[in-house]
């Protein structure tokens, strides 16, 4: 067994080195695409932080990533791999639409918006609860069921938007516009024009709540025991099954933040595929952030910048699509997650010597 790394190296140095490695391999891909890596990196940096507009967009995407990352991370703490954030977020969008379409004519915004947020959290939670229940009570592996639930959610959304919720007389599978939405940050004096909205504040709040819940409450202690040693949980009288069910519901509720940010914050109508793969990016965010809320927020900022910089990159360098940042994401999941041991052992050796 290799000796564990010092805390700071495990939490900061190793993720950073893995990031550098991922960027280096990405540079090779850019070269393979016949483009200049330095030009690409420059475009990425300017595109994500070069102006107030860019920063606003970065924060907007980072909000999605933060919720997705928190959702994956909290399930990870119980030893569960929630691949279903994508589907949970989609269902949460449906929750918002049902509340808004049903009540926006009769309720004032001040009541409607919190209700819509609760509705989205409830729908997201329900879509996480079922796989959680299946895992805890029927032993169905949560990885497989959440994958299946993503596809079931996708089919359901297509069906509802094409056949039921579509605005009459329209071709595009979308609902009608809601009467109201969440306030943009610019209305509070945030400079520039961007879709960043108050959901960002909710994300920070959610991160804090997750930290308190997992690291400072007996419930969270039990959750971590379940994740590290389920047999010890039985010994300690911690109900593993209930922890699994509840944490999957919480995870789904956190995934709903993506829907709130996109649907309530920007589009103000339910559209197809609004999650844009954020749920999968959440895996990278959680891995990079070491499943800790602070780490998740930092990683979310990084991935938000990648998402925003990626669109600018596609604009600046027409032969490099947005998908280039998907490559970076994949490499980060690979290096921080699957190949995590690649650098750890050599690093431990170097540090032991030094």
């Amino acid at each position, binding site marked *: *067994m290799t000796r*564990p790394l010092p805390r700071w190296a495990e939490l900061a140095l190793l993720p950073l080195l893995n990031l550098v490695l991922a960027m280096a391999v990405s540079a090779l891909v850019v070269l393979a695409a016949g483009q200049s890596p330095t030009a690409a990196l420059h475009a990425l940096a300017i595109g994500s932080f070069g102006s107030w507009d860019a920063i606003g967009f970065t924060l907007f995407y980072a909000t999605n990533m933060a919720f997705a990352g928190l959702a994956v991370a909290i399930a990870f703490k119980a030893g569960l791999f929630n691949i279903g954030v994508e589907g949970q977020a989609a269902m949460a969008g449906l929750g918002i639409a049902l509340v808004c379409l049903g009540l926006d004519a009769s309720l004032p915004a001040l009541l409607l918006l919190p209700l819509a947020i609760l509705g989205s959290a409830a729908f997201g939670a329900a879509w996480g609860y079922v796989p959680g229940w299946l895992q805890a009570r029927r032993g169905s592996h949560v990885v497989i069921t959440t994958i299946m639930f993503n596809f079931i959610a996708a089919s359901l959304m297509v069906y509802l938007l094409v056949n039921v919720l579509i605005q009459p007389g329209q071709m595009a599978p979308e609902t009608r516009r809601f009467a109201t939405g969440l306030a943009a940050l610019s209305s509070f004096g945030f400079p520039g024009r961007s879709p960043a909205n108050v959901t960002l504040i909710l994300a920070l709040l959610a991160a804090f709540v997750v930290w*308190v819940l997992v690291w*400072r*409450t*007996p419930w969270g*202690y*039990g959750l*971590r*025991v379940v994740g*590290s*040693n389920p*047999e*010890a949980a*039985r*010994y*300690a*009288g*911690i*109900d593993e099954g209930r922890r699994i069910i509840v944490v999957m519901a919480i995870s789904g509720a956190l995934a709903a933040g993506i829907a709130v940010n996109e649907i309530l914050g920007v589009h103000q109508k339910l559209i197809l595929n609004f999650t844009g793969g954020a749920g999968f990016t959440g895996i990278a965010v959680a891995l990079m952030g070491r499943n800790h809320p602070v780490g998740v927020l930092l990683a979310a900022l990084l991935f938000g910048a990648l998402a925003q910089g990626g669109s600018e990159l596609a604009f600046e360098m027409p032969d490099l699509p947005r998908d280039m940042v998907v490559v970076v994401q994949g490499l980060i999941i690979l290096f921080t997650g699957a190949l995590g041991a690649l650098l750890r052992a050599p690093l431990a050796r170097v540090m032991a010597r030094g």
Partner: protein
Amino acid sequence: MGHQVADIPDVTSAQGAGGAPPAIECRGITKRFGHVLANDAVDLVVRRGSIHGVIGENGAGKSTLMAILHGFYPMDAGEIRVDGRPVTIRDSADAIRLGIEMVHQHFMLVEPFRVIENIMLGAEGGMLLAGGEAAARASLARLGRDYGLVVDPDARIGDLPVGARQRVEILKALHRGAEILILDEPTGVLTPQEADDLFRVLRALRDEGKAVILITHKLREVMAVTDRVSVMRGGKMVAHRETAKTSAAELGELMIGRRPAAAARPAPATPGPELLSVQDLRVRDGAGVERVRGVSLALHAGEILGIAGVAGNGQTELLEALSGMRRAESGTIRLRGEVLPPCDAAAMRGRGVAHVPEDRLRHGLVADFPAQDTAILGYHGDPMWRRVLGLISNRAVEAHAAGLMATHDVRPAAPRLRSSLFSGGNQQKLIMGRELERAPDVLLVGQPTRGVDIGGIEAIHRRLRAWRDAGKAVLMVSVELDEILALSDRILVMFDGRIVGELPAGADERQLGLLMAGAHA
């Protein structure tokens, strides 16, 4: 070789009268795991046509030595000769090629496979199974006749009882052409009847001229079945003996390293009122097998009640049911005279029943938590460390662990160190401290000193006695006869899920052994 052990005879003389080289000869085998020297320049010579016992306490290094012989780990230094020729054993394939086969304590069988498939695995006799299968079946039939090892070749391993699975393991080894057969604690899971059958097989193998190495910590077995015996202690080989020229007493002394303290008999107990009792308790294990089959017992204040028995006779499940880890199938549990509703472990703790689990690493601690977090396992909801808004204060948890470590002499006294980095003895002291802290009326304790060093054993025994003297009730499950005899005020013997006998403190070891073997069942 720098080691000095006075009573190792000149092992080269082991070549014996015939002049044939020994089947296997180890010189100076050394293996280190981190800081632990598991094998320290170990020598061992085993002749053909003999059963050779290797004995020692848990952690003495027997299993490491055998794992090296079977190629499971490489050794750091030393030399191995097979039939006089120096050999290198890099992996199990090398060992198998040399005719060294091992029957592991935890069987290496593929449960969903049939017996014949298990026998063939690794010795298929060709690319296609069809070719080798006929040969394997023939060889099974022959081995069954020669040694009385009968199993249905088409039975699924998962459907076979433990004794039959062990026969499959031995058949597998013989089918692959074993000349040197190592058995690691083979009787731990067997009934006495099955153990006798096993010994008969081993004698037949010896008479065939094979070398059999029997690893055990049971002196009775060594005396009964071996021709020679080697004793290990603390990673070193401390003695080699002809079985006929030694005694269980001498071997026991060699194993422990001193004459067993003529059991400083504790002051007689002064039992108080009945605290915990069970009537007709029945418990099934995770696989649905009924493990506890109608147990009734009563535990009084001020006594240590020892539950003796060979591992796997239902003690684990009894302890789990009493501590709330496992729901009993039927029967009643009374605490202070009141019938308990079904309780989980948290509820039992709340009622003053603490539990030091049999398996420390699986149940007692969370390996990657810092020690301070392990020190609140099961008590994590306690108001003691909850501050603002009822949230857990890390500082309070750390202070608590520091206090616990000082009181119970846990070393190093480092609350933030990962639980897995403490030695077995210190982990046990931490768990014991945690469970005793709230002065529970009833303490359930399983294998209190398993994997604990000698010094630690003394400390833990002292604490259990002090607990009894303070008027509390202790129910102790142990497979170590010495421990049962040294601590118990009353002894109940479990066999096959039932209590088969009760003995007073200071019982006769022979009588206890007979009961454990199910002689009166």
